[in-house]
């Protein structure tokens, strides 16, 4: 493989990492509070607001059931408004964030709901406010689950990022389609797939390691 092609792969890898990294950060920034709220706002819960909970649930489901490639083109005006352009890696971060935030929210909701309800009652019994319960009980206790959820979200984002080539987002997926498929370069396709597999393995291993580190539920030696 020529140095030019290798250079292309390196550049595409950085584009992918940039898009996925920023989208994961922003997705978490929106998805984590949303997930915590979804997990604590049903009737009788900490921030009980059953109607808001229901409405947010419907919005989250709607976003999650829209195919990503349709979401990307459907929100182009919004993307232009936020990023100033609808083309390129930075623009691609907008749809990636919008797709990942509800996904992360659902994963966070599931992780928070795993926390023993008795702990909420315990903290309430010594006078903790709802926010104190979230930050001192729910999030620390759900941390291993939250880290695994984020790992899953990053891996999914790598998959999504392959599709933003459609709006000139660049990245590994785009490279694979343009060179590997459209220019009949199977070695390029293979190289892209190998890099993606390596990235996913790396992210998953790192996530598993961190989740294990913070999990005190198991006896550790």
């Amino acid at each position, binding site marked *: 493989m020529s140095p030019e092609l290798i250079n292309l792969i390196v550049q595409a890898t950085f584009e992918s990492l940039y898009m996925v990294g920023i989208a994961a950060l922003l997705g978490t920034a929106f998805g984590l509070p949303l997930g915590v709220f979804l997990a604590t706002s049903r009737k009788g819960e900490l921030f009980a607001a059953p109607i808001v909970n229901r409405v947010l649930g419907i919005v989250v489901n709607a976003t999650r059931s829209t195919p990503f490639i349709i979401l990307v083109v459907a929100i182009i005006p919004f993307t232009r408004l936020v990023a100033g352009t609808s083309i390129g890696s930075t623009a691609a971060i907008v749809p990636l964030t919008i797709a990942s935030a509800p996904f992360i929210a659902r994963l966070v909701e599931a992780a928070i709901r795993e926390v023993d309800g008795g702990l909420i009652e315990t903290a*309430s019994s*010594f006078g*903790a406010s709802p926010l104190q319960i979230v930050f*001192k009980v729910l999030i*620390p206790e759900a941390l291993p689950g939250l880290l695994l959820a984020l790992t899953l979200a990053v891996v999914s984002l790598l998959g999504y990022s392959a599709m933003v080539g459609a709006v000139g987002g660049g990245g590994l997926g785009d490279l694979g389609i343009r060179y590997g498929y459209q220019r009949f370069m199977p070695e390029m396709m293979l190289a892209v797939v190998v890099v993606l597999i390596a990235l996913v393995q790396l992210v998953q291993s790192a996530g598993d390691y961190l989740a294990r580190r913070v999990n005190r539920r198991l*006896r*550790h030696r």
Partner: protein
Amino acid sequence: MNAHQSLAIGQPIERFEAISPAADEPEAMVRFAGISKTYPAYRGKPGVSALQNIDFAIPRGSITGVIGRSGAGKSSLVRLINGLEKPTTGRVIVDGRDISALAGRELRLAQRSIGMIFQHFNLLSSRTAADNIALPLEIAGWTKADIKARVTELLALVGIADKHDRYPSELSGGQKQRVGIARALATRPSVLLSDEATSALDPQTTRAILDLLANINRELGVTIVLITHEMSVVRQLARDVVVLDAGHVVESGHVADIFTHPKHPITQSFLAEVIGDSLPVSLASRIVAAPSAGGQAVIRLQVRGAGAGDTLVARLARELGLDVSLLSARIDEIGGQQVGSLVLGIPLGIPGEDAVTRTLAFLSQHQFPAEHLGYVA
């Protein structure tokens, strides 16, 4: 409608006896006034009336047991004391404040003076023993240095100073409950609520935890409310007891009085757990209705009171001239009072047929409730 009106129109008053006759006096740490608690119907399930017309006081500095079968309303009762639930009617006065009227920040401040320990410990798995104990202090806004000093003091108080950096998953059940107790005491509460705190522990650990609670009551003067379904817990630790059944207080008073003269069937069944109310199988199977020559009459008598049974058999033998034999005996101590039953064999024939009558008369004269069960050969 105020609490006192609700009292007047409720269930018959004679069902309740306040522990302290003048319950509004300052020595009442917790006072239930005309409390009822009804859970509304929800998602097709009918509403549940958990507590009705609860009126009693828990004396300051006491250890009071609240005993009842599951579903009797114990959990609702304890959650009313620390404001986790609101009564449907009536008031709960804790340390002179109407906790049932507080909400939001005021309630949270009041809750710091009420500690609670739980059956399943409810420790945070992500925090060490020390950090678990620190949690209520962090919530109360203590400084780091104050928290550190207080946590060290508390770990020593509950006897696990060496477990400072251990996570709950590395601790035994008894050690976890010690952390729970230290955490409950962290903010120096005036009341400690124990919700079945020993029900998940083995008998030996239970004993150690109950001893620790007794020490805490004695040394810190903390009023302890023990919610339990286990008679052994009340017997070992409590001075006062409230017997709950189907949402009503059926008896309340000093442990010694209640269990030496249990009136309600549920109280009697709790007492039976300790002293047993059935005869040994080998004896029960031999009892017949008709006397036989050279046999014995079987008489069971109840022992209730301080030192009551000590010399009874010897006196019976001496004063009636009977060769009394002891067929079965079960005596225990509750609140310093002897409680139990003796089964005596009275020889027939030699001094005449009236041995049974004479024995029963003697027992009745000395106020031992007795019954003639039959005869054995």
